[in-house]
């Protein structure tokens, strides 16, 4: 047996294949442990079932138990209005509880841009994108295409604020009288524009190409964003099921694609001017979210031990091969 092993190692071709196998093993292990690989498309975000309702508070302790995935972002250069790219990565966690999917996005932003009041002010924002359940093929992550639409949940920081009148927004503003303050005189409000109605910080939208983004009939997505310590933390929540084929549908044991986008308002980012990811995989597991308690640590220790062990084997094989080659065998 020892002789066979030595003979295998003496063959250059076998040394190559053994090395490759070691690398693949390590890569598989990284994937299995949710460690970030280089390629976005290979990322998987797992949503396990939480035993408690995380609610819309990004600070809820449930989130500490969910494994974050670091999703790389880049500027949007595919179409007008191009731009963005100021936020390199968004950290995403997912759980579900009693048939509702929760996503939590977190990213660094030195300024909290919560107002869009002045003409030059743009609010920070974030969005999550899924293929529509009616999509027969995987839609382009760039706003989908005809026949393969996308469902977008869009949170904007200004929508967390009340829609103030100028006299409320500016402490020194003086207005004698507004003759009419009915909805009709806030034209966009009368037209049913969601920003003018300010009903929710999150809008549920559908799109089938650039420029086609439209509010969905069903506004079932909730959300809330909190800014603290140079970071935005935003939670999105929506029940699994929907009757609208243009929207995404979820369920335990299912997988779907998901992409993310972040806007930095103080850099004038809005619309296509954003930091955006490609699709990654969202895997909704029926398994319970690990509690973070004592029952969890043996798996973590085993995973780390396996990782270290396989790494050591890989390194040893590499070193052996190098040494053999140096000795001219």
């Amino acid at each position, binding site marked *: 047996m020892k002789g066979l092993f030595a003979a295998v190692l003496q063959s250059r071709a076998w040394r190559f294949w053994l090395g490759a196998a070691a690398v693949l093993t390590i890569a598989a292990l990284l994937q299995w442990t949710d460690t970030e690989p280089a390629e976005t498309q290979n990322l998987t975000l797992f949503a396990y079932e939480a035993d408690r309702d995380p609610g819309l508070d990004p600070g809820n302790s449930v989130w500490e138990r969910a494994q974050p995935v670091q999703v790389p972002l880049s500027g949007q250069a595919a179409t007008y209005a191009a731009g963005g790219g100021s936020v390199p990565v968004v950290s995403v966690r997912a759980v579900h509880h009693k048939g509702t999917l929760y996503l939590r996005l977190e990213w660094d932003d030195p300024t909290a841009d919560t107002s869009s009041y002045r003409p*030059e002010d743009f609010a920070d924002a974030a969005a999550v994108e899924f293929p529509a359940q009616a999509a027969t093929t995987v839609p382009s992550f760039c706003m989908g295409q005809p026949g393969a639409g996308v469902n977008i949940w869009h949170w904007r920081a200004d929508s967390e604020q009340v829609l103030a009148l100028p006299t409320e927004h500016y402490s020194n503003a003086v207005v004698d009288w507004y003759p009419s303050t009915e909805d009709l005189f806030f034209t*966009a409000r009368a*037209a049913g*524009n969601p920003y003018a109605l300010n009903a929710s910080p999150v809008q549920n939208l559908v799109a089938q190409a650039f420029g086609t983004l439209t509010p969905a009939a069903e506004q079932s997505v909730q959300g809330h964003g909190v800014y603290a310590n140079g970071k935005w933390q935003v939670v999105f929540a929506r029940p699994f099921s929907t009757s609208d084929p243009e929207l995404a549908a979820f369920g335990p044991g299912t997988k779907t694609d998901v992409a993310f986008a972040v806007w930095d308002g103080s850099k004038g980012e809005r619309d296509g001017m954003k930091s955006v990811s490609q699709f990654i995989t969202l895997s909704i597991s029926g398994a319970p979210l690990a509690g973070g308690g004592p029952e969890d640590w043996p798996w973590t220790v085993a995973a780390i031990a396996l990782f270290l062990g396989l790494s050591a084997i890989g390194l040893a094989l590499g070193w052996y091969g190098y040494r053999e080659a140096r000795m001219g065998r």
Partner: protein
Amino acid sequence: MATVYNWHLGREMSYPYQNGPGGWQFAAVFNTNRCIACQTCTMACKSTWTFSPGQELMWWNNVETKPYGGYPHNWDVKILELLEKANPGGQVWDATAKSDDAPYGRFEGKTIFEAADGMTQRALGYLPSEEEWKGPNNGEDVATGWSAKGAELPEHAGWFFYLQRICNHCTYPACLAACPRQAIYKRQEDGIVLIDQERCRGYRKCVEACPYKKAMYRPTTRTSEKCIACFPRVEGSDPLTQGEPMETRCMATCVGKIRLQGLVRVDETGRWVEDRQNPIYYLVHVEKVALPLYPQFGTQPNVYYIPPRWVPRAYLRQMFGPGVDHAIERYTNPSRELLAVLQLFRVTQRIIFSYAIEPGPKVGEVRINGTVREIFNDTVIGYGRDGKEIVRVTVEEPIYERPQRKTLNSI
């Protein structure tokens, strides 16, 4: 990008969309020579459309004093500077290349569409800050200097003039080109450009792109709004005219009688269909006495200005193109027909679709630039869309003497 014909520039240019099928186009002529900047138009607009919370800094109609005034501050200087930087020394006209298709010659420089990169901007522009939308009357009545010897034509040494501005309802609107959501549209029935208040998401790309800065952001709805050309009046849905098209509020209230608004027929290339007896067509295409504002921007705007005849020509050529000298010559020494058509300004709220002139007797002579001109008291008649007469006015304003009244409150 599509290729479209811009007759203001006398050449084709690139624009994100093809022309529509043609139809009617909202158009107006403003006579800057007559304006006294009373701002009645401004207040008429404000009290009709923009008197609600969030519209405080919004003036769809404004009258600014040139050269120092501007709403928002220095809007035109800023855009001219951006264009000059994008094409240094190249923003010039070939005024010799005139034809029916190119009444002002050929613009050799870059339009705001051609100077933009197409990816971050579809039209070269900038987003004015809140500060810049304040003080809409900054620079009012400020002249360029003091004329110690008094003022003389053709150019005053110290000068200013009033520039009346509304949305130009451009044939090639930059706001429409820039909206990434296609929330802005141009109506075939009258060429009026509108922002869909349901689709707008407040990105302000239109505010950034409109070179005339007539798309404005409203913080209380988080959307942008703009001049709607009083479309219910232009449609004729105001009960006053019983279905007949009526001029906008800013036009109808003009105290100085400087404004005339109408609808002109346009074809599928954006050119005007010949309509010799339409007063707007006559003033713009036959007499060429009224000129577009900053035609070099490339949007083919539809408000035309009779330029002020005392202002240095270089300034006016930059603002109205190379047709300035001809327009001032025409206005200073008007033809018999032009003198009659100029009487149609502000004699009715109804839109005049055509006119006719009945010759009248000679009533006097004037000396203009050394030659004697005869003045005839012709009658000009305006007709509505249905061809029926809506107004009749003579060149010489009639004088009426009121009989003496004995009531105490008679003035």
